[in-house]
């Protein structure tokens, strides 16, 4: 996180705000609601309180304006610059302006007012932009359906105003650090010749042409997918990736989530109803066989016949010696399965049925 240079802050913790005008894009009640929720995020994490007033000068004046609106920071039409806010202080200090040339929404479509307001109010309270892509105070717009303070945002606001008076201090999600030796994964899959790693709300991928590991929100590609995925695998000859969470799964092709999903895993693959979720999955293009790992067992599914092979489930330890009794994620590359469990990764030779190498989970990130 970053505090605004000069560390401007509000001396009083009970602040007022006023919505000077309303965008025609949304019902007034939705605008009121979005702004109120945005303030509540920050008051929950700090000693600050916010009271809405309906006339006169409030500490934080909120308005929808377009183009040059006489504050020496003109807006730029649709897209680009969405909104801005001024650091704490008298007069224009703390005020927040939304670009009326944008379309303001209360859903996944660009641009969600609640999401942008939560960011701008951070500036009104004294925060600058964070370099943490998972933080609300990151400069670029991303919306994955939820609006919450990341731990980085909470640390920032508490660095200015101290802890919340709530008996239970709020905690927020942390953004994975690709070179953290304790990094673990929820799911891993190949995807059109690349490998994609999933953790919480984020994906990570490496690119042979670019040394930096790309980390971003899963919603950048698939806004409909939930965070905290549990398994993923690619069906190459259908150009499909299947994502699993709980007893449901989604199928995507490129950036499109296919129609009719999510579907139930039992009725789709033939799992017994006792199977409530899948830990990991991987498919062999050559044989059309897909391996589903659930607790200490695994199933084998035939993609061509579209049915579970008989004689399953079997014990993981029996057919994948050394892999143990639990798998977090798995993907196939060349003749090997790469199994992930905690911070460990096992390169498993399918021919000899032996572990060839023990690696760190994030060994693909050139740390």
């Amino acid at each position, binding site marked *: 996180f970053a505090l605004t240079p000069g560390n401007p802050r509000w001396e009083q913790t009970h602040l007022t705000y006023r919505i000077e005008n309303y965008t025609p894009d949304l019902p007034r009640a939705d605008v009121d609601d979005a702004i109120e929720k945005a303030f509540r995020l920050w008051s929950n994490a700090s000693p600050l309180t916010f009271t809405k007033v309906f006339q006169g000068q409030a500490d934080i004046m909120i308005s929808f304006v377009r183009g040059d609106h006489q504050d020496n920071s003109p807006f730029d039409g649709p897209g680009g610059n969405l909104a801005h806010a001024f650091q704490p202080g008298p007069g224009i200090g703390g005020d927040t302006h939304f670009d009326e040339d944008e379309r303001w929404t209360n859903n996944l479509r660009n641009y969600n007012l609640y999401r942008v307001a939560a960011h*701008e109010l951070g500036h009104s309270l004294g925060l600058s*932009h964070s370099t943490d892509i998972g933080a609300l105070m990151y400069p670029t717009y991303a919306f994955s359906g939820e609006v919450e303070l990341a731990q980085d945002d909470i640390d920032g606001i508490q660095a200015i105003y101290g802890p919340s008076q709530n008996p239970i201090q709020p905690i927020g999600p942390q953004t994975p650090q690709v070179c953290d030796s304790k990094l673990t994964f929820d799911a891993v899959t190949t995807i059109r010749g690349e490998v994609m790693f999933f953790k919480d709300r984020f994906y990570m991928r490496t690119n042979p042409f670019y040394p930096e590991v790309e980390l971003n929100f899963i919603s950048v590609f698939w806004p409909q997918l939930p965070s905290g995925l549990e398994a993923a695998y690619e069906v190459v000859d259908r150009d499909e990736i299947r994502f699993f969470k709980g007893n449901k799964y989604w199928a995507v092709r490129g950036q499109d989530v296919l129609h009719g999903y999510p579907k139930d895993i039992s009725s789709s693959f033939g799992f017994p109803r006792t199977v409530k979720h899948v830990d990991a999955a991987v498919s062999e293009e050559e044989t059309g066989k897909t391996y589903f790992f659930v607790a200490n067992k695994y199933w084998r599914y035939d993609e061509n016949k579209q049915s579970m092979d008989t004689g399953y489930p079997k014990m993981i330890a029996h057919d994948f010696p050394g892999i143990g009794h639990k798998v977090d994620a798995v993907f196939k590359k060349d003749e090997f399965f790469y199994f992930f469990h905690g911070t460990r990764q096992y390169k498993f030779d399918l021919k000899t049925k032996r572990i060839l190498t023990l690696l760190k989970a994030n060994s693909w990130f050139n740390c």
Partner: protein
Amino acid sequence: FPAIPEPQEQDVEIVQKYLENYYDLKNDGSQIERKRNSGPVVEKLKQMQEFFGLKVTGTPDTETLKVMKQPRCGVPDVAR
């Protein structure tokens, strides 16, 4: 390796505007052409690439331009 395409004129404009808006690049009105590889532009570009965790090259590569074209907050990333 894919050849990094020479930035289009429009991209040069995007880079210039972005760095003026968010990285306090001074705009003294001189021709953009002369500025493309000028010291200040390269230095501000590196600052932006550093901020966004991009490869710090000082040149407007594809990844950098992609970030510059994303919708964002109007508040600068560095103090004016």
